[in-house]
């Protein structure tokens, strides 16, 4: 089946098997391997990308379902060599260690602030419930997201 999407601002058009998951399409066909896979039960959120601005777990979407959509992955977040404020916040607050959850976590965090620009700590924690991290204990991730919200507000 044919799928035509815009990924990080670039138009893509490919022939894919109907059962191809969006995450596999992005990694294997488009060649963007920044989006990771961490599970087989849609539990971990490592594969989170923005689909028309909304965060989705790209292992739960078929590539063909994304037909016509705009997709943003971790590779498309920084612009003109400038880190996105969320990326910068993760760096400043040591919100990543092994980096495996990071692409998904950052995309989920961007989407979270989009929906709720001034969240409480509890709201950040609830909002990131679908994204697992084994390294950070979430402490610095939560701190980074709150700092990014703060930075955007000021």
């Amino acid at each position, binding site marked *: 089946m044919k799928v035509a999407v815009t990924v990080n601002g670039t138009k893509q058009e490919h022939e894919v098997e109907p059962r191809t998951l969006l995450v596999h399409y992005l990694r294997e066909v488009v060649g963007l*391997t*920044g989006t990771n896979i961490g599970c087989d039960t849609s539990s971990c959120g490592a594969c989170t990308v923005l689909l028309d601005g909304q965060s989705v777990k790209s292992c739960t979407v078929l590539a063909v379902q994304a037909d016509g959509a705009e997709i943003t992955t971790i590779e498309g977040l920084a612009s003109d060599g400038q880190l996105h404020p969320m990326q910068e916040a993760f760096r400043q607050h040591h919100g990543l260690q*092994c*980096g495996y959850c990071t692409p998904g976590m*950052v995309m989920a965090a961007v989407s979270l602030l989009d929906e709720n620009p001034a969240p409480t700590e509890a709201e950040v*924690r609830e909002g990131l419930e679908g994204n*697992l991290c084994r*390294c950070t204990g979430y402490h610095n991730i939560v701190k980074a997201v709150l700092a990014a919200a703060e930075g955007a507000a000021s």
Partner: protein
Amino acid sequence: MGTRVVRTEDPRFLTGGGTYVAGLRVPELEGALHATFVRATIAHARIASIDTSEAERAHGVVAVVTGADVDLEPAPPETPILNQQMLRPWLAVDTVRYVGEPVAVVLTDTAAQGADAAELVWPDYEPLPAVVDPEAALAGDTLLFPDVGTNVALELAFGRDEALFEGCEVVVSERLVNQRVAPCPLEVRATAAAWGDDGRLTIWTSTQNAQGARDAVVARLGLDEGQVRVVAPDVGGGFGAKIGIYTEEILLGWLAKRMGRPVRWVETRTESMLNMGHGRGQVQRVTIGGRRDGTVEAYRLEVLADAGAYPKLGAVLPYMTRLMTTGTYAIPRAECDTRSVVTNTTPTMAYRGAGRPEAAAAIERAMDLFAAEIGMDPAEVRRRNLVAPDAFPYTTPVGTTYDSGDYRTALDTALAAAGYDDLRAEQARRRQAGERVQLGIGVSTYVEVTAGPTPSGEDARVEVRPDGSAVVYTGTSPHGQGHHTAWAMIVADRLGIPLDRIEVIHGDTDLVPRGEGTMGSRSLQLGGVAVHEAAGKVVDRARELAAEVLEANPDDLVLDTDAGHWHVAGTPTATATWADVAAAAGEDGLAEDARFDAASPTFPFGAHVAVVAVDTETGKVTLERIVTVDDAGRILNPLLVEGQRHGGIAQGVAQALWEEVRYDGDGNPVTANLADYAFPSAAELPSFEVVPMETPTPVNPLGAKGIGESGTIGATPAVQSAVVDALAPFGVRHLDMPATPERVWRAIVRAGEPPTPASGPAAAGTGSAE
């Protein structure tokens, strides 16, 4: 040094994501076949036959390989002290011994084809009785290796003193289960193998020590050391489960040879939950005795460790548990015996703390039980028995020598930071009022061994390039720890070359032939110190070279580390840059190697206070606060240290409250994916209150101990203790981990009707602050 420096490796991870094995796009792996393992669906069975014909005909299948095809010797356990007759086949041949054990491998053009074809391999099993429980395994009614005649893989017995508790006014004993958990790094195992035209094998693998993996590949495949290169690209967490290399991964080298094509394998999470080594898994008996004034006089720890089906590192870890038997306490008489047995379950490996959390959990539970029995506040009982600050180096009754410490300050600092007295007052108020949600307060103190058990060393090379930048080659293998930043800080401090001009190279055995990797909280105190020493040698050499450049006496030369150049004392205008100095080194370049061998391991320590709220109607436990003091000697980068502590705390809390790998009675796993396994999210955890403390060690020139595992070791018993403490009014003195709502609720119900704290049986102990 000692400053908060953000990580130099982050921009790469944050903009493009890391390069893990699954995403590796190198020319050598072009056209790689995908390997898919067919795995046992039954815990213990004889294999009557394996029908591969249907799979062989499936779309995209290049080959199906079974154990009968593999012409390599099965391997005995890597560690020589383990029973060497318990051989592990490459792929199960006659018998399967746990659900998930590989029985065949399918090679296909794409991963999806492999998943489909693996379903078409039909092993015919004749079921055997499964032994899932280590206590049953010890009884030996069912043997995993009938020819061996025992399920015991390792016994460490040092003789039992039947008079150990003689003269004690109070003796308490309890059976404790330190449950099996899954390390769950977010990246599962992944490996790729390719043979070059030069007859060399390259293996890319997600490992914590590339050099150790290389040695295993060389030995198991019967190759020469020069024939094998192992590369660890970015590694998405390890936590002990990725020490070395797994049998399946070594087999990829053999498969790539046989197929004449590169082969790549990336396991699924479900496969990972069944095959990546599990952690913990000990059944313990603690017995503690002492006087009613709070003095502990004797302690016995008996350990039965679950090795899983094929003994690996997990079977050896009771040795580490034994080393830390008495924890932070000066107990005059103590002993520890251990046994490790095989069961029809996933083999166990190291998991964050690796044997020491089990020791801490045991002694901390014992202290609580003792406190409850004599009716004394548990923090006070601990304080009375701590090893005194002037007692170091201190040798325990089991023969472990602690380097340095100040346990009393750690405990008092943690109690003060938590507001212990106020917490006890609030607890008393809720108990008095009979409130539905009760407060539990748990205190732990711990000491652990890092870079142990026997002293070891690490290699480093520091090179200054002709352009004045530097490169560090390290035998450590970071997978989240931030060595790129930390090692660069060490070099920048000594050489004055800015951080962004220092590159760190690790995890490629062609570039770094010697190294022992990252595990056991060893990296900074061995690898970091080696970098420090190598940089020092570079400075010595550079002094001579700078003297040539500036035509001065080497003794008159000054290295200005702020400016990053050399000058003659008193003449700051005549300078030689690092580029000048490197150029003066000529052909050979300016590079120095160093190895640091520590004289002994080090012993980080600390104290944790956990506060939980327990809903006495539903049994739900909420961790409200955790306050930790973790002293790992001198700190290089507080940002990294805090990160290590946070991650460790979360994993410790998770074991205490939620996580457990479970099997049914037939050995079928019931927690084989991340939907069923209770891996916590941000929503279940609070922010952590981490208090700094630094007591340098004399063991190395940086004064540093390891921080990787402390959080886990302290947090687990503190949180477990807090849950039990909340249940004290119901007469509960012990509850095994994890403290799931069901388990807590049952304990309350069992305590009798009606289950309200006000009318429950009187608490024994724990309440002296009331």
